[in-house]
């Protein structure tokens, strides 16, 4: 199976060094988003997704992950961005959420793992008009770049 290890990062070392939360940095278009590593079960390459009829459009279907059938959603469609174009860099991040179980999320690219300390994270004020910010709980600053930290439960929540 084509699973990928998060390359070059030794997780236990990072934990020992900082008392910080680690995020996997992904790209959607030009923006960078962070996913809390404790929810990430696995990162797999793009593979054939079996379409499931009569479900919400952002649910792309199901994949086979080591014998388990896992639903996969498109983060782009959920966030009302232009639909995915699958490239060699496209990945499916397998999330394990308490409320929703195991879900795969399609992202354009997985960049790196960063550890953000409290002072590097800034809460964003909620803007009711823009749906997209509903999924972002905070913004992290890392090496001069901004990373929008995703609220995964909001991402997984069904659209009304």
């Amino acid at each position, binding site marked *: 199976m084509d699973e990928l290890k998060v390359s070059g990062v030794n997780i236990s070392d990072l934990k020992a060094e900082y008392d910080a939360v680690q995020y996997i940095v992904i790209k959607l278009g030009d923006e960078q988003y962070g996913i809390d590593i404790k929810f990430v079960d696995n990162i797999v390459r793009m593979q*054939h997704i*079996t*379409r*499931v*009829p*009569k*479900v919400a459009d952002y*649910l792309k*279907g*199901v*994949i*086979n992950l080591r*014998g*388990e*059938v*896992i*639903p996969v959603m498109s983060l782009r469609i959920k966030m009302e961005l232009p639909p995915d174009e699958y490239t060699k860099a496209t990945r499916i991040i397998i999330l394990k959420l308490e409320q*929703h*179980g*195991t*879900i795969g999320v399609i992202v354009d690219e997985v960049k790196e793992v960063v550890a953000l300390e409290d002072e590097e994270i800034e809460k964003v004020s909620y803007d009711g008009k823009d749906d997209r910010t509903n999924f972002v709980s905070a913004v992290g600053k890392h090496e001069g770049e901004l990373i929008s930290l995703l609220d995964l439960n909001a991402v*997984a929540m069904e659209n009304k």
Partner: protein
Amino acid sequence: MDVNQYLEIFLDETKEHLENLNAQILVLEQEPENADTINEIFRAAHSLKGMAGTMGYKRMQALTHDMENVFSEIRNGTMKVKSNLIDTLFQCLDALEEYTGNIQETADEGTNDNQQLIDQLNQFLKAGGAVEEKKPAETAKAAAEDVSIEKWKDIKLGESEKVVLSAARAQGKNVYGLTVFVQESCLLKAARAFLVYKAVEEKGEIIVCNPPAQDIEDERFDLDFSLLVISDCSLEEILQVTRNVSEIDKVAGAPYEFEGVTEAETTAEQQPAAKTAVAAQPQNAATPKANDKKGGGKPVVNRTVRVDIEKLDVLMNLVSELIIAKNSLVSASSAEGASGTGFKEQIEYLESVTTNLHESVMKVRMVPIESVVSKFPRMIRDLSKKLDKKMELYMSGEETELDRTVVDEIGDPLMHLLRNAADHGLESSEVRLQRGKPEAGSIFLDAYQDGNNVVIEVRDDGNGIDVEAVKSKAIERGVITPEQGDNMSEKDIINLLFHAGFSTAKQISDVSGRGVGLDVVKAKIESLSGEVEVKSQLGEGSTWIVRLPLTLAIIQALMVIVGGEKYAISLGGIQTIEDISPSEIKLVQNREVIHLRGSVIPLIRLSKELDIESSKSPEENLVVVIVKKGEKLAGLVIDELMGQQEIVIKSLGKYISKCKIISGATILGDGEVALILDANALI
């Protein structure tokens, strides 16, 4: 001793005993003089008391103790079984069930003393007659003592053991023979024996153990076991430590006399003869004893292992994985045109092995439905009193087996159907007599296997379903309009009963017609991939037929292609596959139908249902899969057939549960996921 590890065993066995008691007391009500039944009841009550005592559940013990006293009086013939006594006993059983329930949830029996029940029992005892309780116990004891209790004398020594014993004697050590009798009521014989074993080992060295230590550990012994011990201690000391172990009935011991190595030859010849004679004796004595107690019941030692259902689930998953792997090998071999017959042979062999393995694992998970239905006679009895109708329940096929998960779930729906039959189905006694039916109504519960399904029928000889009453009720409730009602067939109207919020009982009784309706029964059974239908004849009774799949995990399926996507349809519902030319399609009420061998079958275009473009042009012949749901037929239009395959059902998970026509997914040989179409939901 920490008893927590025995809690599960305790709960299992308590439930078993309670079920047994329920069943036997019902028999007792019918045949108050049946000695076998009385003995069985006494034995079960006694075991319950012993177990509750061991586990430290004082209240439960107190109640069972008084019950046992009552049974003892009945057994002695000093007390007669009366209907009010039976009622009290059933109340006691309910109280015990409550205790058990509490223990299961909180490991504590709760604080209900049930003093009232105990008082009632004592009143029966007082009224019942003289105290002659001890007599049978004494005679039993006397009888037991007639059989030699010094069983260690029967132990046959091996050559090496003789050498050890001689050496020990030469060193001036004592050799003792011990026979330990465990109390009959003892629950964990092996544990007790182990404690004795350990206690003795502290005092000396155990040379011989009869039966062997391994058998004792596995509880493969009756009530006694014998030891030969070398020790420096006195005999009395050793006897004392063994007596200190609880639940030990008695211990016999004496210095062991044996012949030295030199005399081995002559004794060896005599001993086997003597041994068989001695061995035969207690066995003869024991067999009739065991028989009248257990009424020809279960063997002393069950050759079973209790396994956590989760472990079986893991095993089942692994087997599923294996089948998927096998399927991919099969498809790989056919795709590459497999060179050499040897390879093909091996694959066929692998196929048969995995199929057998799958069947065996499935069988392990199967349990008889008995565990569910055994509580029904009692329920019907109670209902009979409550509703003041006379009725009898006749059951057959309790040994029919179903997957454990199904059995656990099927109890409530069946109970509901039975209650319905008792409450709505059967007429009151007067009406029955007027109609020339026997006064007591009959309810039948029949279970049997039918191909890959298990069928459970609940039948009554009551009034049957009044179609007109159902219709007017449905109209009244706004379920259908009067015009609709006129156009509906009798069958469709009867099916309205399964509609949510539908209760035809004119009076809302305690028994049914409140809350849980037939719609819930139907939903539950359908969630188990089963179906329920009803047949009824007004005035003659109705039959509710519940059909359940034998297994939930792996099925035979037809693989089809619709618009380039692969789907599986369970083979169970498929009647035939037809090749239909577009000209044969007719329109009835603006719906596409075909006329096939005398029946008109509606067509369902799967491509439309699945929101996908069919890959076939409209002029081409259609491939139609004819599926059956109950009596209804429908034709599913597909693009292409792939073939038949064994598939492993995987859940889509709750995240994608909205799609009704998809019942699950499966993983194909090439690792791809295919969805399973629920033909029942399509019709």
